[in-house]
């Protein structure tokens, strides 16, 4: 009971201790996730010219979609533009590390893949990159989550997660959703 100044101080110290304890718990769990489980906010600073995005470099049309690199790394490249993702559907294998690389040709967009921790902004002039492992198969919705204009609500793509046995890239290492 706070009947004297000393009691008030003691109660405030106790309250501050509890608050610090809560912050400590949250901080420890975040550190554990980052260091032990490799869960980090996507962080990548890589510049490119949005004006020539479709003409040169990795985001030209033949390079878009999923490709298995020579070292077995699965990379999916997507261009975000008002008001669509190109390609509209990408196929990725389940239980294998996938690198999503996105860039915007016009304004700021953002993506999330439903049911996963994939969530990033796509800023023109930069490459947004997310590494992840998809854990269940199925068609996952990937909407634009950064208001980008009047057609924003119609802007979405699909991520088709297939079992590894059904993930069959062609001779060039490309895989697509098919007809």
């Amino acid at each position, binding site marked *: *009971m706070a009947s004297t100044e000393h009691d008030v101080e003691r109660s405030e110290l106790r309250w501050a201790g509890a608050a610090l304890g809560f912050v400590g718990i949250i901080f420890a769990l975040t550190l554990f996730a980052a260091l032990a489980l490799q869960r980090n906010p996507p962080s990548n600073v890589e510049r490119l010219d949005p004006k020539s995005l479709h003409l040169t470099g990795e985001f030209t049309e033949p390079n878009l979609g999923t490709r298995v690199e020579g070292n077995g790394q699965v990379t999916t490249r997507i261009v975000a533009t008002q008001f669509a993702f190109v390609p509209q559907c990408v196929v990725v294998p389940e239980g294998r590390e996938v690198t999503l690389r996105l860039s915007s040709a016009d304004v700021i967009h953002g993506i999330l893949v439903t049911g996963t921790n994939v969530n990033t902004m796509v800023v023109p002039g930069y490459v947004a990159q997310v590494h992840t492992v998809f854990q269940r198969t199925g068609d996952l919705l990937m909407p634009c989550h950064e208001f980008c204009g009047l057609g924003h609500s119609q802007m979405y793509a699909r991520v088709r997660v297939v079992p590894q046995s059904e993930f069959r890239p062609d001779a060039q290492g490309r895989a697509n959703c098919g007809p």
Partner: protein
Amino acid sequence: MSDPIVPADAPETLTQQQLHALRAMPVGALALSGVAVLLLLIAWLLIYLLLYLPRGMVG
């Protein structure tokens, strides 16, 4: 100048009953704020353990 709320002949010191009420008040405030913060922490932990962790690696 006369105060319209406190009558001029009111006693200057608090009664025992008023003192008791003043002492008891912070206990309720602490309990209320404690429960509110605890509920927030539980909600954060539930989202972390049941949604964030099962959704897999990202980086």
